[in-house]
């Protein structure tokens, strides 16, 4: 997964990571939306598995999750969709869900069962936003066993020790949260993102992607000026809601342009690599 990001950077652009939930507005359309995002220039896909209590998510993603859950899809259906997706794609994808979903998958194997199912479905990694590093040992063990990368969140409120441990544990990339708060589209980009990325650069050589509130091509261009990757969630979900795969494709193409237009290779990155 970090290779996909480095490859994009090598081609002179920030990697574009696009989030879309499985099962929204229905399972087939969600797969079509993910494939449209890949075609339009996404470098990584983040597939959300809906959960009843998504406390890191704002209204747009909450509502999409609710639609998928009301339709009766289970995490097993979500995994199944990912397996089908894999056959049609040549970019990596990762699952984003909450810890209770991972822990319940295919009991009594639980976490190990989830990690194995994800790897079997062709997923490359996982983001579990309510799993901080301090609680992650059981997950890291089973993820490593099947070759799944783990992505941890880093926030501007974290002290340097927490930032370093989040970066160390992140085997895919480090997810720098651009702003305090939950997922959702924002008018303007927070001023917190750039200093946070600098602080992370000081403690890690791993790729750093910035997400939460990154909504437009201009935001993407701005983030591409200081980060290795750009993560877009709610704006993509809104496009999927409003215009399905066609709208997703249009948005992602614009975002990809932003990622190229704004990209600046970090000064120290040559020596760091």
């Amino acid at each position, binding site marked *: 997964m970090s290779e996909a990001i480095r490859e994009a950077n090598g081609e002179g652009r920030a990697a574009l990571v696009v989030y879309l939930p499985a099962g929204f507005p229905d399972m087939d359309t969600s797969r079509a939306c993910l494939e449209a995002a890949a075609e339009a220039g996404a470098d990584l896909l983040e597939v959300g598995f809906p*959960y*009843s*209590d*998504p*406390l*890191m998510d*704002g*209204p747009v993603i*909450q509502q999409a999750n*609710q639609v998928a*859950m009301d339709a009766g899809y*289970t*995490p*097993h259906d979500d995994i199944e969709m990912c397996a089908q997706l894999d056959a049609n794609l040549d970019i990596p994808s990762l699952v984003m869900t909450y*810890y*209770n*979903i991972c*822990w*319940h*998958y295919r*009991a009594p194997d639980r976490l190990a069962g989830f990690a194995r199912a994800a790897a079997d479905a062709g997923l490359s990694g996982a983001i579990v*936003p*309510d*799993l*901080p*590093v*301090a*609680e992650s040992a059981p997950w890291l063990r089973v993820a490593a066993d099947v070759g799944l990368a783990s992505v*941890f*969140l*880093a*926030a501007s*409120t*974290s*002290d340097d020790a*927490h930032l370093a441990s*989040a970066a160390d544990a992140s085997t895919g990339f480090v997810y720098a*949260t651009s702003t*305090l*708060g*939950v997922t959702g589209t924002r008018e303007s980009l927070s001023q917190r993102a750039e200093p946070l990325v600098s602080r992370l650069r000081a403690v890690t050589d791993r790729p750093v992607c910035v997400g939460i509130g990154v909504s437009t091509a201009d935001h993407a261009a701005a983030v591409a000026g200081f980060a290795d990757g750009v993560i877009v969630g709610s704006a993509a979900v809104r496009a999927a809601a409003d215009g399905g795969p066609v709208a997703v494709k249009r948005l992602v193409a614009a975002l990809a342009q932003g990622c190229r237009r704004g990209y600046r290779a970090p000064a120290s990155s040559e020596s760091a690599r």
Partner: protein
Amino acid sequence: MHDGHFGRFGGRFVPEVLTTTLDELETAFDKAQADETFAAQMDALRRDYGGRPTKLYLAEHLTAHAGGARIYLKREDLAHTGSHKLCNVLGQGLLAQRMDKRRLIAETGAGQHGVATATIAALLGMECRVYMGEEDCRRQRLNVVRMQLMGAEVTPVTTGTRTLKDAINETMRDWVTNVETTHYLLGSVVGPHPFPMIVREFVKVIGEEVRGELLEREGRLPDAVMACVGGGSNAMGMFHRFITDETVRLIGVEAGGHGLDTDQHSATLVAGTEGILHGARSYVLQDDYGQVHPTHSISAGLDYPGVGPEHAWLRDTGRAEYRAATDAQALEGFRLLCELEGIIPALESAHAVVPAVELARELGPDGIIVVNLSGRGDKDVDEVSHVLEMVTPSDGESDVHAPDRSPAHPPRSSARTSDSPQRAASSSTGGEEG
């Protein structure tokens, strides 16, 4: 000694953005515990402002009705704001002040914790916002007004179940956004470490008072202490001092709603499975995939699919016992206290009454039981009068009578004891023709 776990339960399953703040909270708490001025401040506030210690009342008529063990009531309903919740908010309010947070946010179900938080915010001059499920705003309207009168902003939560679970989600989302200026004043022994530990330390005074006073009056420890369990704070407050007194049974009563054979209840420890919700590993009412179930209880304060991790541990070690009382039993307990003792209890607290009567009969006259009367019932009067009419008379399972359907009769004979003739039937509830 705190690594945030109770056996395998507890922990801290939260977004990274909160971990540094939770560390700071724990540090502030540890410092405060070691600081005599904090202890003195707490003592003075509890006593002069909060009305502690609360009374321990021997409920003679309920005891006679049960015909067994003596039943004492710990009168948390007499504390300022009308419930046990004030002990916790006094402590956390002072902690927030020490951490230089000027804004308090809280979730509330029954509104009692919201009222307590609004109270401390007014007292300490802080900004306050309370999240409350839309459904709970309706059924606990009195408390919404109380919060507003004290200057708090009440935000109705319209997502998910529109009850306590989603009020907690919404408060967490606010906290994640405003963590630098804001303290989340969590209202029960739930959530990520250090909350379950901190809240317990602030409410354990309940059991300490009971133990001291009962030893003085009865010369011995009780056979059992009982309390209703929503998130578990009033029960933990009652239990904690007794955990090492092995002869004392600790009995928690959860909300059995329409019955455990339906999915309309909130009996997490009795009928739930292990999972991770709201930052901690504990028991959860959820499906096989880990999606959390909607719950039901007649009482908003117990209508929650999670429970504090220390209770999960007490359950698994067998140190505490948990049972469930249905909506109908809670209503019966409510009426027993109204009619026999002249005390209108919170519907939450009322859940422990019928199980206490049953246990009193089992233990016999030599026994002693203490029930935590965690709050008063003013907030429930509207809802109860409404529900009582719905429950009768066709519902065969319940023999609760709507007062206005049996105007000519004294209240349920079982609610009176034949051996207290001076209290026979004239009655306050038979009248009032609808």
